[in-house]
């Protein structure tokens, strides 16, 4: 497997949808290729950064208006 093939298949690999033999090829490539391992490590760090961000909360005013609307009878 070459680097550009890994690039195309990395997200499928993470999603668990690649056949076993392709997964093994990809893993072998990662073992031998520092740049691709670096790319994969960066993307995993990016995921952790995203999950460490405080999730957005719906403003109370919006929530109140919606709750009121859902409590209204059909006109």
């Amino acid at each position, binding site marked *: 497997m070459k680097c550009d093939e890994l*690039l195309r298949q990395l997200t*499928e690999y993470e999603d668990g949808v690649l056949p076993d033999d392709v997964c093994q090829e990809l893993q072998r490539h990662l073992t031998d290729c520092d*740049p691709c391992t*670096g*790319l994969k490590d960066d993307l995993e760090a*990016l995921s952790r950064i995203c999950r460490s961000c405080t999730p957005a909360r719906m403003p109370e005013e919006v929530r109140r208006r*919606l*709750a009121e609307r*859902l409590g209204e*009878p059909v006109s």
Partner: protein
Amino acid sequence: MSPGPDGADATRREALSRALVEEGDRLYALALRTTRDPDLAGDAVQEAFASALEKADDFRGESRWGTWLHRIVFNKSIDLLRRRRRYEPLPDEDSDRLTAEDERLARRASWTRAPDEVVWGAETRMAMERALDDLTPLQRAVFELKEAGERPTSEVAEILDLTPGAVRVHLHRARLKLRARLGDHCRGRETTPSAGEAKA
């Protein structure tokens, strides 16, 4: 004379009220990520619930109420951006296939700061928020649903009316752009060889 709330109407209101409690923050987060504007995000969510009430007969139960609502919220967010002329996608930027630009971004040198240092800094999170501005609304929506929401690809595909393969392409492109934009923040003095130099 208006008909009072019938059984079906009461059921749909109850389902939507439950979705508001259980998924309200996630629906708003999707709208905010997509529009990058708290006012538009609030409008998108309110319009989405109004549509859901009007069109609840279209809901056939193939998906969860929450999934259906996410889909409406995303569509309303894009509608509002277009109405404000803030979203005119370029021909290639929302392509379902990886492009030469994606490959170029993948060849950028790796970050070298230790993961904990990268992950936990408030500055890093602020840098991430700024970097999200460079993504298209669709890329931000995919990123929000997959990375923050940790939803399965099949559900993201259903919400965004894409194939699972297209979701993966948009997610990959979003992550490559963010990695490149965060490079200056996360890269130390020492860099490893860039992807593509060694074995391409």
